[in-house]
Structure formats: structure tokens, C-alpha cells
């Protein structure tokens, strides 16, 4: 990065102010426990928001991420609690991670096909899975809460590496990988061109349909991973609750991070910072005794201001 995007710089300043404020007023802010709690909470939002940023960069939106999380989160315990997996714990563990991710990818493929080949608007196409995906997860589990003890699997949500939660590392690695994909691969170039000007991309011979499908598959797979992490974190899977309202958190993180809903821009590091900013803001309010309800109102104001600032710069 030769020069810092002004939007990113603004967000960094805001984050720094928030951190300084916390150091000053929040009791016990500067300790490892606080960091770990925040890191484990922000990780799932960040992972989903990375996929959302790619989708938004393509000029689309994905409302189905929360439901896809529920599908993946419902499948994993069903697999490793099955008789076959109990008999083959090693393979069972692999299957209980890989198969739900494949199921999530299939959901993304479905979204992508509707959008790219049938020309259905993204908000409507992903609305289908938003409505029915959670229902599918609940039907799979008979609406029952699945609880389990499986230390190997729960490591995904409760383990620590160098004092930081595993999912925090996963989010960090994924951020770097996806940022590289956007900047260094042909897919990344096509993605930005499709989102920037779809008509021109078609005329220039870019494989628009394939790029869009790939984008929704990536977003859904990342959502599936987040679903697995949530289930691992709780040692329980409740299809009715996993990933609820996640689409809003992810969209908010992406937009605060500098993504424009009109497409053509994929600020991956901005998204990570956006997710951290929203998490930290919520933590600041709650740690200082301000209610959850006020947190919602503050989040709303932050989103509005972030979008307004973006507008101001473009004109």
C-alpha cells in the first residue's frame, strides 16, 4: 500500500479515539481477558463480513448469510454425533467440518445461479434462503437444541493460540488471504470490474456470471465457517438462533469499513477494522453500563454517518 485510503485513515483515527477513551474510562480494559473476549466475539462477524464485502463489491448483497450459518451449524453436530463418526472419530471430525462447508457452498451456488443466470436481483434471490434456510436447519434438527462435548471440535471456538482465540486467528488469516486474492488474482480484478460497471465488463469479455457465482459461493462458505465457530463456541447448536441478524452486522461492518453498496470497491482491511469498530463500540457502551438498546441506536447512527461520509467524498 503506497498511500493510505482517506476513508481507512478516518476509521483508524476513530478506532484510536475509541481505544484511548476505553483506556481512560473502562475498568480493566487493558488486560488479556478483555482482548480475548472481544477477539472471540468479533471473529465471526469479521469472517462473514469478509464474504459480504466481496458480494457488495460485485454490486450485490447477501441476506442469507445468517441462515447459511444455521444450516452449517446444525449439520456439524449431526455428523460428529452420528454412530459412524463415533466409530471413526478422526474421519468424523473432518467430515463434520468439510460437509457443512460444502452444504454452505451449495447454498451460495444456488444464490449465484439465480442471480447470474436468471437475472434475479440479489436482495430477492438471497431472501429465499434467508426465509427458508433457517427452516431447513430447524427441520434437520427437529427444532431441537443439540448439545455435545467434543473437545476436538469445540477447539475451533474455545481454543487459544498465543493467548488469542483460535477464531480470531482464523479471521486474521482469512483477511490477509482474501485481501491478496482481491489484489493479486484475476478473479479480484474481474470482481471489481463487474461491480464497477457490469455492462462494460460484459462487453470487455469478462466472465461476469462465473465471477458472481464464485463470489456468492465464497460468501456462503465463509458464513458456513462462522456457523461452525459459533456452534463450537457454545458446545451447542440451536438452529433457531445461530447467526440471527448476522446479515445486518456483516453489512454494517463492510459499509463502515468503506464498501460502497453500488459496488466496485472491496476494502478488505477496512472491513476487518469496521467489524472491530462496531464490536468495540458495543463493548464500550455495555462495559460502562449503557444498555443494549442504546447500543442499537448508536450503531444505527454510526452506520448512517459512515454512509454519509462516503457520499461526501465521492462528490
Amino acid at each position, binding site marked *: 500500500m503506497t498511500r493510505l485510503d482517506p476513508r481507512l485513515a478516518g476509521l483508524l483515527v476513530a478506532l484510536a479515539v475509541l481505544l484511548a477513551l476505553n483506556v481512560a474510562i473502562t475498568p480493566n480494559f487493558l488486560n488479556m481477558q478483555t482482548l480475548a473476549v472481544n477477539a472471540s466475539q468479533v471473529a465471526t462477524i469479521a469472517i462473514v463480513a469478509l464474504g459480504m464485502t466481496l458480494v457488495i463489491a460485485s454490486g450485490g*448483497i447477501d*441476506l442469507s448469510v445468517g441462515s447459511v450459518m444455521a444450516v452449517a451449524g446444525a449439520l456439524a453436530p449431526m455428523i460428529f454425533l452420528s454412530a459412524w463418526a463415533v466409530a471413526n472419530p478422526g474421519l468424523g471430525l473432518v467430515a463434520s467440518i468439510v460437509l457443512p462447508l460444502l452444504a454452505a457452498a451449495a447454498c451460495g451456488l444456488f444464490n449465484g445461479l*439465480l442471480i447470474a443466470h*436468471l*437475472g*434475479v*436481483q440479489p*436482495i*430477492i*434471490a438471497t*431472501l*429465499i*434462503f*434467508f*426465509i*427458508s*434456510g*433457517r*427452516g*431447513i436447519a*430447524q*427441520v434437520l434438527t*427437529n*427444532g431441537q437444541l443439540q448439545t455435545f462435548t467434543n473437545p476436538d471440535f469445540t477447539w475451533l471456538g474455545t481454543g487459544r493460540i498465543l493467548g488469542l482465540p483460535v477464531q480470531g486467528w482464523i479471521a486474521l488469516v482469512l483477511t490477509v488471504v482474501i485481501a491478496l486474492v482481491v489484489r493479486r488474482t484475476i478473479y479480484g480484478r474481474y470482481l471489481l470490474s463487474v461491480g464497477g460497471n457490469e455492462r462494460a465488463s460484459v462487453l470487455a469479455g469478462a466472465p461476469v456470471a462465473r465471477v458472481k457465482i464464485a463470489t456468492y459461493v465464497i460468501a456462503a462458505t465463509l458464513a458456513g465457517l462462522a456457523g461452525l465457530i459459533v456452534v463450537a463456541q457454545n458446545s451447542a447448536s440451536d438452529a433457531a438462533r445461530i447467526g440471527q441478524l448476522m446479515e*445486518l452486522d456483516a*453489512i*454494517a461492518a463492510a*459499509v463502515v469499513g468503506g464498501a460502497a*453498496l*453500488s459496488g466496485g470497491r472491496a476494502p478488505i482491511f477496512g472491513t476487518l477494522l469496521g467489524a472491530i469498530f462496531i464490536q468495540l463500540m458495543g463493548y464500550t457502551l455495555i462495559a460502562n453500563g449503557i*444498555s*443494549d*438498546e*442504546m*447500543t*442499537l*441506536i448508536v*450503531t*444505527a*447512527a454510526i*452506520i*448512517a454517518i459512515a*454512509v*454519509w461520509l462516503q*457520499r461526501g467524498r465521492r462528490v
Partner: protein
Amino acid sequence: MPGVLRQGHLSVWVALAVLILFGVLRYENFASAYNLSSFLGYNSMFVVISVGMCLVIMTGGIDLSVGTVAAFASVVAAMLSPHGLVVALPAGVATGLVAGALNAGMIAGLRLPPFMATLATMLAAKGAALSLSDNRTVPVDWASDFTALGMNKVANLLPWTILVALVMVAFAWVIVQRTSLGRTVLAVGGNAEAAHLMGLKTRRAEVFVYLFSGACAGLAGVFLASGYGAGQPLEGAGWELAAIAAVVVGGTLLTGGMGSVPATVAGALLFGLVFNLLNFENGRGAFSLSADWQSVIRGLFLLIVILLQARLARLAVKH
């Protein structure tokens, strides 16, 4: 009846008629007064928010805030219910109008994208509903006349709420069909820049649709509190998507510039009917679909409608 039965919108009416016929023939109590009045009572909330959403979508916008604004308005109305309907009803609608004004200010004034602006209002309204109600449902005052709106029926058949909802429908329809404001609403959705360059008052049209949608959401909140006896701060989740689905099923494209108010009403009723029929099917006991299946079937239903629309749109392009 020009406008009502125009080609593109015919399918939703046919589907509605087929499902009603199916229900009447298959289930004994389907055509009963009790079922009709409870069906219309419950769905009057969805009819009214769908009509508001329809006008917003005609301008190419979207209003994600209707569900939580309705919940907020239900809390406000329930709290004011001791003063009777005369106070609580306008207060609920005014709550919706305030939210609508916020949306309109951000969208028509600050030129924020509707999706993000109404998303912010959605969160803020939820926060406001929860903090006003202290995170609890707010019981209404049964001694006042507030519950009359939601619970009384004309001739023991038609709930007052559906009649009020139909007044809103008629208002929206007249605006779209007969006024220059309505023409401008459609022109903004067709091509906002061209409409503006032609000298149409595009901002006024945008302000109007978000105010109208807010008022509709407020009214739905009053229906909720009055019909079910409590202001419910946590209700309304997903209502915006139900309304969007109703609009889409009614043949209105999300890109704006076209659409039909009556077909949107049919779309909202169609969605409600799918649930109603499922309940009857469960009641017969031949096989039982859990509540979880309902959302799966609703999603499938939406998928079928969208696939049909995509086909129709392609055919239309070819001709």
C-alpha cells in the same frame, strides 16, 4: 377494470383464486366466518405494510425499517391506550411518520442509499422500542376502547383493521393512478435523473413514499397492539422481508418504475393463505408439518414465483 387485471399481474390473482378454491373444497371449516375473520385480522398488518413498501419500491427504493417501526408504534400505542383509541391510534401512526421522516431526510435530503438509511432506522427503532418498553411487552388497557379496533368485527365477519387497511390501499391506489404525485413516483423509479431533468418534483415523491410507508408501519403497530392486547417491542422481525416478498409476488420489480397496488395486496394475502392452508392441512392429521416447515415452504413458494417472473420477463423481452 383497467390496471387491476393487466397481463403481468394476472398470475397473482389466478394463484389466489386457485388456492382459495383448493381450501374451500378440501377443508370443511375453511370457508367459515371464524377463519375468514381471523385470517383477515392477522393479515391486515401485512397488507398495510406491503402497500407502503409497494410505493417505496416503485421509486426504486426499499424500506427495511417497517418491522421494527411497527413494533415501536405498538409499544407507543399500548402505553397510550388508557386514553382511548382517539389518542393511541394517531400516536402510533405519528410514531411511524417520525420514522418515515427520518428515512426521507436521509434518503431525499442527504442522498444516502435507501438500503443503508432504512437499515439504520430499523436498528434505531428497535432500540427505541426496547428502551421505551424496558424490554418487556406492554399490556394494553382493556377498560378503554383501544382494543375495539383490533378485536371488533363488522357484522361479526370483517375486522375493522382490514377495513382501515383497505382505506390505505385505496388511498395509495388513487395516488398512483390518478395524481401527478403518483406519476412522479413511477417516473423516479423508471429513471430518476430523467424525471428530475423533466422538472418533476422527484424529491417530493421520495419524501412522500417514505412518509407513507412509515405511516403504514405505524398503523400496523397499532393493529398489533390493539388486536393482540399488548405492545410488543420484539415483534416485527422479518416483516420487512415479508412485505418485500408480497410486493415481488405482486409483480412489482425491485428496480422500480412500475408496479401495482392491488396486486401487492393479493401478494400479501397469498402469503398469508399459504400459512392458513398449512394450518388446515396439519389439522386434518393425515400428515403433520411442524412450524419449521412453514418457512421452508414459504421460501419455496417465493422461489417458484421468482422463477415464473424471470421466465415472463424473458418472454416479454423477446416479443
